[in-house]
């Protein structure tokens, strides 16, 4: 399934990795000088989700971006410790280096000059304009990362409305038209705030100050990534699924250290290193062989991994997670126990109450004392630590006690800082008797969730907890089809629902804006119906300030949400990787798996 959780994807920025340590690549140093390299530098691993699209303008799935981060470059990127570092740009703009104007509205970006695309083209400011304008016009999942740039709305409007004619326009003509417009520099698809004073400089003017934009633009494999116009034009519809021949037009051409040399949908992909690549560290691996498998094949894959057919298991985020029995199996094998790597992920799962849809919601709707009290009763009735122990066996997740934002990220409130994370069965029961003495209000409640992964055991656990601690029977409403689940949530057709978020970039805005903010409300994506003017105004202010001053305001938002009891925090995800010890530089951080050009295979 593409969407195992509602939201996922990549992470960013400076963060201290909490908890368990992992294999960290020697960043910045070329690994090719390391002694003891194996003769064959071919990395092999399976992923468990087929590519949806590699097109950075539309990509939506973690596994896709963790592959294309090695093919496309952004102006900046995140190193393995989530620090923002220059990629295609020469430096990270700040007010002190004059990259950002004092009013925070203008960014001046200087580009590296030795950069080449796989097809031989030199990279210049034109490519940034093309890629970003295209990203805005395509209106993909992450188009909003560019939304603060002046002229963004106009481009979306010009490119975006579905034509009124009921003739099947078809995918070809839509994309072809867009490419034609972009090719002819049609002003309707050019963001006015994006200009190129010269070939190596890009000037970005914002509609309003933005404290989070730089991190959002650096999100790998996404709208901030640079694509090659000529190659896209050879096949606007399907260019991303076509292989690349170095020096030639066409296919998934980027500026990254690897290019795709073979692609068979739902079967396999091969990537090869770019010879004489412009950046550093230079790739040591010559080839990456990726098998696309069904999740049910993972047990066999672990066996194959033990026998050496694969070098690592777990690449590609949530969809590649090892199951608990497999983890125990590896732990129990003395040869491999030390090659199991545990990494907390920036992904939180919680329960959302329907607080804003009176016609479809239940007794939890609204701000009345009864609604709030009942929400609190249901929150206090769940023992989050026991849930992590029972459902995750304390291996696949940890209890979410420090707020919605996971440990290690900017905006984490601190262990046990979230009042909703408490477990107090007596208090819960007394709240229930106070606000629902007859049991009428809490009869026939439903908990909706999409099936797969930990969602099913969590649902059973919650049901059991409410039954035991409140004496309330809650019916389960599973959707084996995530899109149906999301559609219902978007239209408010639920009472309580599984909810979650995997951060894209390390900034509280990514959480508070997308989940309960005015942006989400305006876009019709505020699934809980939470709408609070104070929240919105604080959020607006916070979003326009640098994170140093904005953090206190974001923390204020966390307090508003917990005071209102709009959610029940459940758990933070932990990923487990099986990585053979001869792999140097492989691993993962809270956001994403490490870049391939940092990985090498030691002789073994």
């Amino acid at each position, binding site marked *: 399934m593409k969407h195992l959780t509602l939201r996922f994807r990549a992470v960013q920025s400076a963060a201290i990795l909490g908890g368990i340590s992992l294999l960290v690549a020697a960043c910045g140093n070329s690994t090719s000088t390391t002694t003891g390299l194996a003769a064959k530098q071919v990395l092999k691993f399976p992923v468990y989700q087929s590519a949806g699209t590699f097109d950075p303008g539309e990509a939506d799935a973690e596994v896709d971006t963790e592959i294309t981060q090695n093919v496309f470059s952004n102006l900046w990127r995140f190193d393995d410790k989530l620090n923002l570092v220059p990629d295609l740009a020469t430096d990270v703009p700040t007010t002190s280096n004059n990259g950002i104007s004092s009013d925070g509205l203008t960014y001046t970006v200087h580009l590296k000059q030795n950069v080449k695309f796989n097809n031989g083209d030199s990279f210049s400011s034109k490519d940034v304009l093309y890629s970003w304008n295209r990203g805005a016009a395509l209106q993909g999942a992450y188009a909003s990362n560019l939304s603060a740039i002046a002229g963004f709305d106009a481009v979306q409007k010009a490119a975006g409305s579905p034509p009124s004619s009921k003739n099947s326009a078809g995918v070809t003509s839509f994309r072809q038209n867009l490419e034609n417009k972009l090719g002819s520099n049609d002003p309707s698809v050019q963001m006015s705030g994006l200009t190129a004073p010269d070939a190596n400089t890009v000037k970005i003017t914002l509609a309003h100050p933005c404290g989070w934009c730089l991190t959002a633009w650096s999100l790998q494999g996404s709208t901030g990534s640079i694509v090659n116009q000529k190659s896209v034009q050879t096949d606007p519809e399907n260019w991303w699924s076509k292989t690349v021949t170095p020096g030639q037009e066409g296919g998934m051409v980027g500026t990254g250290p690897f290019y795709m040399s073979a692609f068979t949908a739902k079967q396999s992909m091969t990537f090869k290193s770019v010879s004489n690549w412009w950046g550093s560290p230079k790739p040591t691996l010559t080839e990456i062989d990726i098998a696309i498998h069904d999740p049910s094949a993972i047990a066999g894959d672990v066996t194959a991994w033990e026998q050496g057919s694969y070098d690592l298991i777990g690449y590609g985020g949530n969809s590649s997670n090892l199951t608990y029995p497999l983890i125990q199996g590896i732990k129990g094998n003395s040869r491999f126990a030390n090659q199991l790597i545990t990494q907390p992920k920036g992904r939180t799962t919680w329960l959302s109450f329907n607080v804003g849809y009176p016609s479809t919601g239940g007794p939890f709707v609204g701000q009345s004392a009864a609604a709030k009290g009942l929400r609190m009763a249901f929150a206090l009735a769940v023992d989050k630590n026991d849930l992590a122990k029972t*459902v995750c066996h304390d291996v696949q997740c940890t209890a979410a006690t420090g707020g919605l934002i996971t440990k290690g990220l900017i905006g984490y409130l601190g262990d046990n800082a979230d009042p909703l994370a408490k477990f107090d069965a007596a208090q819960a029961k007394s709240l229930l008797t106070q606000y629902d003495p007859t049991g009428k209000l809490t009869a026939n409640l439903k908990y909706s969730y999409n099936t797969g992964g930990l969602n099913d055991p969590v*649902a*059973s656990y919650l049901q*059991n907890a409410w039954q035991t601690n409140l004496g309330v029977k809650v019916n389960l409403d*599973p959707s084996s089809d995530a899109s149906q689940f999301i559609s219902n949530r978007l239209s408010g057709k639920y009472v309580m629902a599984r909810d979650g978020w995997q951060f894209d970039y390390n900034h509280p805005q990514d959480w508070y804006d997308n989940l309960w903010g005015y942006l989400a409300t305006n876009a019709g994506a505020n699934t809980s119906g939470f709408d609070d003017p104070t929240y919105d105004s604080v959020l607006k202010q916070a979003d326009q300030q640098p994170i140093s001053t904005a953090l206190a305001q974001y923390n204020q938002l966390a307090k508003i949400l917990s005071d209102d009891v709009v959610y029940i925090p459940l758990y933070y995800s932990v990923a487990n990787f099986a990585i053979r010890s001869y792999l140097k530089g492989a691993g993962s951080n809270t956001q994403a798996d490490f870049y391939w050009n940092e990985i090498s295979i030691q002789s073994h």
Partner: protein
Amino acid sequence: MATAIQDPTIEYAGGTVAREQVSLWRDGLRRLRRNRLALAAAVYLMLLAVVCLISVFWTPYKPNAIGTCATYELPSAGHPLGCDDLGRDSLSRLMVGTQVSLAVGLATASIVLLVGVVVGLVAGYFRGPVDAVLSLLTNVFYGVPPLLVAVALYVLLGPGLINIIIAISATIWMDMARLTRGQALSIREREFIEAAKAGGARAGKIVFGHILPNALGPIIVQATFVIPAAILTAAFLSFLGFGVPPPTADWGGMANEGLPSLQGGFDPYILLWPALTLSITLLAFNFFGDGLRDAFDPRQKR
């Protein structure tokens, strides 16, 4: 799946002889009693029904209660079949799972009996448009795998026990209709029907008073094969993730939940118990059905 009901050895396209009722039944029961395998199967099925009844009122532990024991606990004195991935007692869940399986089997058989027999009788006796539509539908449905149709229907109807029953019934009622139609077609040409007609009997009386009783033997035998076929299809569905919503225990779903632990070589029991129980139950239904057929259809005697 090629269900047992598609097995041509139990199709009765040719005419059966109208036999004398009393001796037929007595004769059949006597033969059934002599068939030890079928008898053992009947005893097992009765036990299963008893377990099913008991499980409505009592199980060793609450079947959905989490934490009655450690997760993945292996079989022990306190939990003879061990516990599942959430620490629920496997024996209790296995017992409760009987309810879903029997409900699906019996309800589907009832629906198939009712719809299939009526449609079959009408099509066979009156011919005409009903017959034409029936043979058209049969042709189309025989062109697609029934499980896949059931999956599509299930997804369309949404999760739930009733929807599973509807989805399965919709895919297998035509076999019963076809069988009954064949019976009706041949019986309507017999002399005693002529006689009844000449005696001024109304069509309804002829169909339900004369044709149905004479076609009953094969119909009942067929119905006993519908039960395991329905249970099997339901198990397939829930094994693929199209089952009753959790936490309700059903054997196919339990097996599905147990597959990851089996694959890790970690705890085979979670899968083993429902899989074995399901297999034995299906086996029993098939043995019993075979016994019935041998007993009531002399043509098929060994």
